[in-house]
C-alpha cells in the first residue's frame, strides 16, 4: 500500500513542479478538462500488478525519478536538430525539441485550403471552438494516472484538422527530439488529429534521442476519423536507452473510415504503447502493425484495446518482437466484440523471436466475443532461430552472425513492408540492421 500511495505523491509532485508553468497559461478552452484531470489524479484507482493491464509491467523504477517540466530543458543547437532530418524527405513538418515546439525547424508552408496544422498551443487561441468540440472525445474511459497526468498538464502538442474531402499529398512528419543532459524531463505532448469525412493523410511520428538522456515521454493522441476518412499513421520509437515512454493512442472511427497504424519500437528503457480503438459506426477498418526489439535493460509493452461495438467493422492486429540479451516484452492484446457487433471481422497475431536464454516475453491475446456471426482469430508464437535455416545459409558461405541477422530481418520483413513511405521503410530497415548487429553478436 505504501507503493500505491507513492503513486499519488509522485503525480502530485510532477503537478507541483509544473505549477509555475501552468499558472502562466491563460484560461482557455481546455481549462475545465485540466481541472477535471487534476481532480482525477487524486481519485483514480492506482495502478497495481493485480490489474491485468499492468500485471507484467512494473512502474517502480519510473516512480523513482523526479521529472521536471519542459521549461527546465536545455536548448538544443540547430546543428544537432538538423542532423535528425531525413534526407530529401518532402513532408510538412513539426519539430519538438525537449518538449518545445520549434517553429524555425518546422515546415508548414503551402498547406492546402481546408487543412489546419499547427502546434496545439497555437490552436488553443486560433481554433478554440473546433478544439473544444473534439478535445477528450476519443478517450473512451477515465484512463489511468498517466493519461490524467497528460490532460492535467496539457500545454502543447500537434493539432491537425483536415476538412471534408481534402487529401494531403505529402506526409506530415512530427519529430520529438530529446536531449536533456542531467535534467530528467517530463514531456507530455497532447495531439489532436481530426480527419473530417473523406479526408486522407499520412502522419509520421518519430521519437529520437541521440544519447542516454533520462526523460519520461508521456504522449497522448486523440484521433477522430470521419466517415470515409483514411489515416496512415507510422510511429518510430527510437528513444534513449534510459528513457521512459508511454504512448496512448485513442481512436474514434466513423463509418467506412480506415486507420492504418504501424508502430516500430527500437529504443527506450521502458516503453509502453496503448491503442484504444473504438468503432462508432459500421464498415470501419483498423489495421495495426507493430515491431519491437528489446535487449538488456529494455522493456516494451504493447497494449491493445480494440472494441467492436457496432456491426460490420474489421480489425487486423499483427505484432512481432525480436528479443535478445535480457530484453523483456509484454503483449496484451484485447479484442472485444459486443453482442450487437455482428459481422465483425477481427484477427490478432503476436510472433516473437527470442535470441537468448535470458529474454522474456509475456504474451496474452484475448478475444472476448459476445456476437455469434463473426469471423475472429488470434494466435501467438514464441520461437528461436531455426537451426536448419541457419545451416542452410552457412552452407552457402554466409557466417553465423550474418545468417542470424538475415533470418531476423526476414522475420520482421512483413511488418516493415506495411510502412508505405519508402524513406521511412529504409530508415526502419537500417535501424533494424544496426540493432540486429548488436543482438546477434550478443547471442553468440
Amino acid at each position: 500500500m505504501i507503493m500505491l500511495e507513492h503513486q499519488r505523491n509522485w503525480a502530485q509532485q510532477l503537478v507541483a513542479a509544473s505549477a509555475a508553468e501552468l499558472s502562466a497559461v491563460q484560461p482557455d478552452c481546455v481549462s475545465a478538462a485540466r481541472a477535471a484531470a487534476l481532480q482525477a489524479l487524486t481519485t483514480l484507482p492506482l495502478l497495481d500488478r493485480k490489474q491485468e493491464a499492468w500485471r507484467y509491467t512494473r512502474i517502480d523504477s519510473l516512480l523513482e525519478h523526479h521529472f521536471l517540466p519542459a521549461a527546465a530543458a536545455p536548448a538544443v543547437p540547430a546543428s544537432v536538430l538538423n542532423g535528425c532530418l531525413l534526407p530529401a524527405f518532402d513532408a510538412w513538418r513539426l519539430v519538438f525539441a525537449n518538449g518545445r515546439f520549434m517553429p524555425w525547424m518546422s515546415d508548414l508552408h503551402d498547406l492546402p485550403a481546408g487543412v489546419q496544422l499547427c502546434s496545439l498551443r497555437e490552436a488553443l487561441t486560433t481554433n478554440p471552438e473546433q478544439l473544444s468540440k473534439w478535445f477528450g472525445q476519443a478517450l473512451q474511459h477515465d484512463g489511468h494516472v498517466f493519461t490524467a497526468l497528460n490532460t492535467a498538464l496539457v500545454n502543447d502538442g500537434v493539432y491537425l484538422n483536415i476538412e471534408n474531402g481534402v487529401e494531403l499529398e505529402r506526409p506530415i512528419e512530427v519529430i520529438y527530439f530529446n536531449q536533456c543532459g542531467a535534467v530528467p524531463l517530463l514531456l507530455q505532448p497532447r495531439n489532436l488529429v481530426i480527419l473530417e469525412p473523406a479526408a486522407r493523410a499520412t502522419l509520421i511520428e518519430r521519437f529520437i534521442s541521440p544519447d542516454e538522456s533520462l526523460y519520461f515521454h508521456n504522449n497522448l493522441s486523440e484521433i477522430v476519423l470521419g466517415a470515409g476518412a483514411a489515416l496512415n499513421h507510422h510511429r518510430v520509437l527510437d528513444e534513449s536507452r534510459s528513457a521512459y515512454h508511454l504512448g496512448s493512442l485513442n481512436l474514434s472511427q466513423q463509418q467506412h473510415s480506415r486507420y492504418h497504424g504501424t508502430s516500430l519500437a527500437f529504443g527506450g528503457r521502458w516503453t509502453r504503447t496503448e491503442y484504444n480503438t473504438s468503432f462508432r459506426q459500421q464498415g470501419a477498418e483498423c489495421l495495426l502493425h507493430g515491431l519491437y526489439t528489446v535487449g538488456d535493460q529494455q522493456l516494451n509493452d504493447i497494449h491493445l484495446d480494440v472494441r467492436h461495438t457496432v456491426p460490420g467493422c474489421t480489425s487486423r492486429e499483427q505484432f512481432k518482437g525480436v528479443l535478445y540479451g535480457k530484453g523483456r516484452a509484454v503483449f496484451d492484446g484485447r479484442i472485444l466484440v459486443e453482442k450487437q457487433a455482428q459481422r465483425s471481422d477481427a484477427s490478432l497475431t503476436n510472433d516473437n523471436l527470442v535470441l537468448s536464454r535470458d529474454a522474456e516475453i509475456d504474451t496474452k491475446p484475448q478475444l472476448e466475443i459476445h456476437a455469434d456471426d463473426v469471423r475472429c482469430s488470434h494466435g501467438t508464437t514464441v520461437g528461436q532461430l531455426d537451426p536448419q535455416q541457419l545451416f542452410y545459409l552457412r552452407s552457402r558461405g554466409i557466417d553465423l552472425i550474418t545468417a542470424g541477422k538475415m533470418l531476423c530481418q526476414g522475420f520482421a520483413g512483413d511488418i516493415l513492408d506495411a510502412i508505405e513511405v519508402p524513406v521511412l521503410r529504409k530508415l526502419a530497415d537500417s535501424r533494424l540492421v544496426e540493432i540486429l548487429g548488436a543482438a546477434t553478436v550478443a547471442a553468440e
Partner: protein
Amino acid sequence: MLAISNLHVAIEDKPVLRGLDLNTGAGEVHAIMGPNGSGKSTLAHVLAGREGYQVTKGEVLFEGADLLVLEPEQRAHKGIFLGMQYPVELPGVNNMIFMRESVNAVRRARGEPALDAVTFLRRVREQAGLLELDETLLKRNVNAGFSGGEKKRNEILQMAMLEPKLAILDETDSGLDIDALRVIAGGVNALRSPQRSILLITHYQRLLEYIQPDYVHVLLEGRIVRSGDWQLALQLEEKGYGWITGEAAA
C-alpha cells in the same frame, strides 16, 4: 581432392557410418548408391558440417587439409557445396539478395572482389535461363512456396553461381518428374569440369542415365562395400541391393 578414411559417425550415439573410405579426384563424378538408412545423407551432411553428427573415428581431408575442424561457412569458402535433399524455406529472405550475399561471402573469403549488382544479375539470369527456372522465383523469398522441382532447380542455380570445387548432390533426383530431371541433369553436366569433383548421392539408377558417373560406390550399413564403373549401377538396377547384401553376408 577429397580423401575420406575410416570415417565413423554417430547420431545421438548410434553409429551410422562405420569405417567409410572414399577418394575423389578433380574432374571425377562419383555416384554413391545405397538403400534407405545406409548413411548416404549422413555422409553428405558431415561433409558440409551440419551439427548433430559425432565423428568418432577417422579423418576427412579436403585438398590435403583437415575438413572436419571447419565451420560450415568455411567449408563453403573452400569450395564445398551441398545440394540439399530438402531445401528449407527462408521466410522473408529474398532469393536474389540471399544468392548475392552467398556469392559475395565466398568471394570475400577468397580475397576476390564482390560482384557488382549488374554483373551478378546478368550471371543469375543466364544460369536461371539454362535451368529453365522462372525468373519470378528469383524475386520471391528463398524456396517459399516453390514446388519440389523448383526447389531443386534453385539448388543447382546456387551451385552454378558458387562454382564449387566439390559439389555434393544429396538425392537431387528425388521427387522430380522426367522433364525436371532432364533439365537438372543438364545443369549438372554443364558444370562438369576438369577442376571440379561431383558426388552424386542417389537411391536410383535413373539419375545416372542422365549424368554418367566415372565411379559408382555402393554404401551399405555405413561402409562402402563395392565400387565400380557405371556398369555397377546397371547391375544394381537389375538385381537390387539384396544381391550385394547377400554377397557381403556370404
